[in-house]
C-alpha cells in the first residue's frame, strides 16, 4: 500500500462524517444505557425498523426519508414508552433486570429481525432522495452528500437532545433520575414516568438513525447486528450518558474504522469497534468524558 497524504486526509474526513452518523445511532443508547441503566441491546433492531419505515414511505409516497423519520418520531416514542412499561412491570420492579431483562431485549432484537426477514426477505433495500449521488468537492476533499447530510442532521439532533437534557424541566428530571430516584420522589416527581419519557425519546432517535442508515447504505434486516459492537463501543468510550462524549467517541471510531478500511481493507472494519471496546474497558472504563 502506497502511503499518500491525500488518501490519509480523505480517510480522516470521511471518518468524521461517518462518525457524525454513528453519533445519531448511539445517542439513543447513551440515554437508555448511559443515563437510565437499561441495557437496551435491541436498539439496532429499532434502527433497522426506522430504516424500513423510511423505505416503505419513500417508495410508496416518494417522501424524503429524513422528513419521514421526523414525522414518525411520535410513533417510535410511543413504542419506546410501551416497551419501557413492560420492562418496568416485568423486570425492574421485580429486580430481575440483569438476567431476564437482558434476555427480554435480546428476544425483541431477534423477533424484530426475523419478522423483517419473513416480511421483506433478505434483499437489500434502498431509498431515493435528491442528495443521494452527488458529492461536494472542497480542495482535494471529496464529500459525498449522502453522508454529509445525515452527519449534519445528526449533529443537529444531538444539539437538540443536549438542550433538552440540560435546559428543560423534563431533561433535568431525566438527569436526576439517573442519580437518585428517591430524591425525585421527594420532589413529587414519578421516577417511572420520567424513565418512560426518557426511554421513549431514546427509541424515537432510532427512527432518525434508521433513515440516515438507509440513506448511507442499502439495508437488509441483519445489518443491525454490525452496529451492536459499534454502538456500545462508542457509548462506553464516550463516557456513559454524556452526549458530547458520544459525538467525540463516534468520530474517533469513524476515523479509526475509515483508516483501517483504507489501509488494511474493509473486511477488517467490524473488528475495530470491538478492539476499541475491550481497550476502553481495560484501560479507562469510565470513558473519555465519564462522570
Amino acid at each position, binding site marked *: 500500500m502506497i502511503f499518500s497524504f491525500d488518501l490519509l486526509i480523505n480517510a480522516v474526513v470521511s471518518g468524521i462524517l461517518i462518525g457524525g452518523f454513528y453519533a445519531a445511532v448511539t445517542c439513543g443508547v447513551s440515554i437508555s*444505557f448511559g443515563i437510565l441503566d437499561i*441495557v437496551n*441491546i435491541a436498539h439496532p433492531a429499532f434502527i433497522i425498523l426506522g430504516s424500513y419505515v423510511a423505505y416503505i414511505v419513500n417508495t410508496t409516497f416518494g417522501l424524503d426519508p429524513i422528513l419521514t423519520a421526523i414525522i414518525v418520531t411520535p410513533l417510535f416514542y410511543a413504542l419506546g414508552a410501551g416497551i419501557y412499561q*413492560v420492562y418496568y412491570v*416485568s*423486570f425492574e*420492579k*421485580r*429486580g*430481575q433486570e*440483569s*438476567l*431476564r*431483562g*437482558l*434476555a*427480554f431485549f*435480546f*428476544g*425483541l432484537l*431477534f*423477533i424484530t*429481525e*426475523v*419478522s423483517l*426477514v*419473513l416480511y421483506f426477505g433478505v434483499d437489500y433495500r434502498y431509498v431515493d432522495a435528491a442528495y443521494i449521488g452527488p458529492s461536494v468537492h472542497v480542495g482535494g476533499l471529496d464529500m459525498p452528500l449522502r453522508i454529509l447530510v445525515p452527519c449534519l442532521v445528526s449533529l443537529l439532533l444531538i444539539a437538540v437532545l443536549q438542550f433538552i437534557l440540560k435546559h428543560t424541566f423534563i431533561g433535568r428530571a431525566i438527569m436526576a433520575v439517573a442519580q437518585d430516584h428517591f430524591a425525585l420522589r421527594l420532589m413529587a416527581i414519578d421516577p417511572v414516568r420520567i424513565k418512560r419519557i426518557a426511554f421513549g425519546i431514546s427509541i424515537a432517535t432510532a427512527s432518525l438513525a434508521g433513515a440516515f442508515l438507509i440513506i448511507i447504505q442499502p439495508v437488509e434486516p*441483519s445489518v443491525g*447486528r*454490525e452496529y*451492536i*459492537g459499534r454502538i*456500545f*463501543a462508542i457509548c*462506553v468510550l464516550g463516557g456513559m450518558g454524556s452526549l458530547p462524549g458520544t459525538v467525540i467517541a463516534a468520530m474517533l471510531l469513524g476515523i479509526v474504522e475509515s483508516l483501517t478500511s483504507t489501509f488494511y481493507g474493509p*473486511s*477488517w472494519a*467490524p*473488528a475495530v*469497534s*470491538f*478492539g476499541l*471496546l*475491550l481497550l476502553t*474497558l*481495560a484501560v479507562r*472504563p469510565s470513558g473519555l468524558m465519564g462522570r
Partner: protein
Amino acid sequence: MRTPLFLLIWFVIAAAVFAGAIAFGNDYVFFAGYVVLQYVVLSTAWNILGGYCGYVNFGSAAFFALGAYSTVAIYKFYPLPIPLLLVFGGAVSGLVGLGMGYLTLRLRGAFFAIATLALAVVMETLVVNWDYVGGSRGAYIIRPEEIAPIGNYIRYLFLIMLLLAVAAITTARLIEHSRLGYGFATIRDDELAAEASGVPTLRLKLIATTISGALMGMAGAPFPYYIGYLQPSSTFGLEYAVNSIAMPLIGGTTSWVGPLIGAILLGSLQQIATVTISSAVNLLIVGCLLVGFVIVAPNGIVGLVHKYLQRKPDDFVGRRRVDPDAPEPAP
C-alpha cells in the same frame, strides 16, 4: 444421589436412547437427534455461567464456532480422531472465554454481556479474513463413510454428542452441589455481599466462563464433520446464541434439569417445525417463547412445576393464594 450413581443412570439412559435410535431404523433420527443433543450441551454450558452466576453470555455462537473452526484448522493440517478434536476445541474456546472474562468481568455485568454480543461479529471477521480455514468461501470436510465398530459415521457423531451431553449434565450437577456452585450462587444473588464476605468473586466468575466456554467449544468441535461444509455466516448464526439462551430460560435456570428440559423440548420442536413449516418461522417461535417466558414465568418450566408441587394449604390466606416467592412491594 452420589455422582457415580448419577453417571451410571445417565449412561443407561444414553444407551437406551442410542439403542432406540438404531431400532427406529432410519438414519434421519441421528441427524435430527444430533442437533437436539448439541443444544443440550450448549444450553447446559450457557447455564453454568448464566443460570448459576447470573452473567449473560450472548456469544454462544462465537464459542461454538471457535470449536468448529479449530477442528477445520487441525483437519487441514492432519485429520485427528474426533475425541482429540473435542479436547482441542474445548481448550481454545475455554481460553478465549477466560481472556474475555478477565477483561470485562471486573466491571459491571452489562459490560460482559455487551462484549460477548460483539465477540461473534469479531470472530466472524477474523475467520472471514483467514484463508487457511476457508475464509468467506467456507471449508469442506470430507466425512468418512464408515467407522470401525459402529458402522455409519453419523451414528458415531451422534454417540459422541450423546456422551458429551452426559458429561455436560454431570459437570453441571457436580458444580451445583459443590463449594464452587454455592460460590456461584452467592454471586448471582448478591455479588457485593459475596465479595464482602470473602468470596473470591472474580476467580469464580473466570472459572465459570472458562468451563462454560470450553463446553460450547466442545459442542462445536464435531460440527464440521456433521455439516460437511462449514461457512462463516451460518456457523456464527444468531440461532445458536438465541437458542442457548432461550432453552435454559424456558426450562429453568437454577438446576441442571432446566436446560435439559428446555433443550429437548425446544430442540425437538424446532426439528419438527423446520421440516413442516420453515426455519425462519421456527426461529420466530423461539424468540416469542423466550420473551413470553421471561415475562410470565421467570423461573421457567421447572419453576412452574415446583410451584405447583409446593402448593401447601398454609400458602392460602383466605381464598387467595400467597406467593411465597413474591418480592417485597417496592417502597
